[in-house]
């Protein structure tokens, strides 16, 4: 009987990027620190979701769902630890973002700036929706809405920031 090799992984034409050691942890820690630091001085910085942007960037670049969801879980739990939210709220949301981002990055080209902008805005809304769903379901809090104008604006703001952040992080890629 003839055997057929089945390839499971990113599309062959899509490049999987690797980074220098320590880049990912440092980026994560910096995003968390800055996420906690900016709102102290800038009120409108509440819109920022730097940990989400870092998670999404590495998920899209590494294109490995397992590593993407683990990274999302770690970042989310750390964010939970630094905030007053119960452990797991951000963790669940970012785990799903990491998984879906990696899965998506393995299938489509996410290097294009417009793609990155749209994906970032979409994932911001998805992240917020999951966070709201979890809050409503588990914490029985109804004060969070799935989508509002400020949320839409925040998604656009974060997408705009991602347009500068992602190329910056691209510089830490290992040359292929």
């Amino acid at each position: 009987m003839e055997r057929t090799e089945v390839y499971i992984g990113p599309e062959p034409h899509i490049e999987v990027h690797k980074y220098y050691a320590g880049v990912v942890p440092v980026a994560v820690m910096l995003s968390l620190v800055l996420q906690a630091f900016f709102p102290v001085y800038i009120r409108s910085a509440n819109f920022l979701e730097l940990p989400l942007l870092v998670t999404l960037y590495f998920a899209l670049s590494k294109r490995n769902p397992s590593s993407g969801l683990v990274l999302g879980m770690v970042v989310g739990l750390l964010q939970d630890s630094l905030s007053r939210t119960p452990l797991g709220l951000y963790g669940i949301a970012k785990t799903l973002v990491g998984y879906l981002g990696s899965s998506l990055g393995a299938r489509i080209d996410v290097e294009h700036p417009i793609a990155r902008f749209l994906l970032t805005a979409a994932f911001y809304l998805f992240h917020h929706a999951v966070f709201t769903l979890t809050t409503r379901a588990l914490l029985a809090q109804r004060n969070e809405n799935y989508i509002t104008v400020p949320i839409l604006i925040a998604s656009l703001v974060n997408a705009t920031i991602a347009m500068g952040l992602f190329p910056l992080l691209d510089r830490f890629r290992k040359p292929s």
Partner: protein
Amino acid sequence: MIAIPSRHKSLTLLAGVVVAQVLLLAMQIKRERQVRLIRVWAVELISPLQRIASWTIHGAQHGWGGYIGLRTAQKENDAMRAELDRLKVRNAELEGRALEADRLAALLNFRNAYSEVPMLAAHVIGASPDSGSMVVNIDRGSRDGIRRDMGVITPDGVVGKILAVYPDISQVLLMSDKDSGVGALLQDTRTQGPVKGTGAPLLSLDYISNDEKVAVGEAVLTSGQDRIFPKDLPVGKVVDFVADPKSPFMKIRIRPAAHLERLEEVLVLQTRQEMNLKKSPDAETTPVASPAAQKAPVAPAPPAKKPTDAH
């Protein structure tokens, strides 16, 4: 070990990580009354199983208990049915005894009322197998002082006379037998005539002239002329009478005062001594026997009267 494809591995990992974090959240979150969500979930997850288990166990226990109960109930039912049957028999026996006691009490009252008259109580223990003769057997015989032709009565009235005597039993010829006869008289007119058996429940009073006044319901008493029964014992009552144009005598039918068809206890008169029936507690006998109650003849009886009894 089952190999999981890498795509499924990541999905499995995702599911595991999400579930783990949900559980982590549940352990931290407190809902109403400060109960942690993980406890709420655990209780809500387990309680249906507990209910099912409890329901199953309870149902099994109930079913088993019902089965055992049914078996026990069946046994108890059988035992109670047997007890009920036994009690029915016992009840019938007691009712019979009560009736017998009533009859004996009446007999004793009658006996006490005429304590000066020697009489002997006896039980009817059988009847003649000959359907043509009206004979019963009593449990008294020659050893008890019973002699042939002694009168037999009940508190209600005349029964018959002793036909044959054996050491321990005697035969009584009932008034209703064709060969039986009692000297009698009509209570109102004091007209005498023999009362004879007809082989049927009703008796016949003979040799009463067509000119005599007879009334339906009139009492017929013993006359004492037969030297068997004392005077003025109740024999029966007139049921109907017919004046026979071809004969100088009426045909009069009498219903016996004593219940000849259901005799159980009787009294055997050991003498022909005349009894003062005024003492009788029996309402039926008192007016019959009282001399004051003896009235003058009334208007002549109609020549014929339609019988009230078809016998």
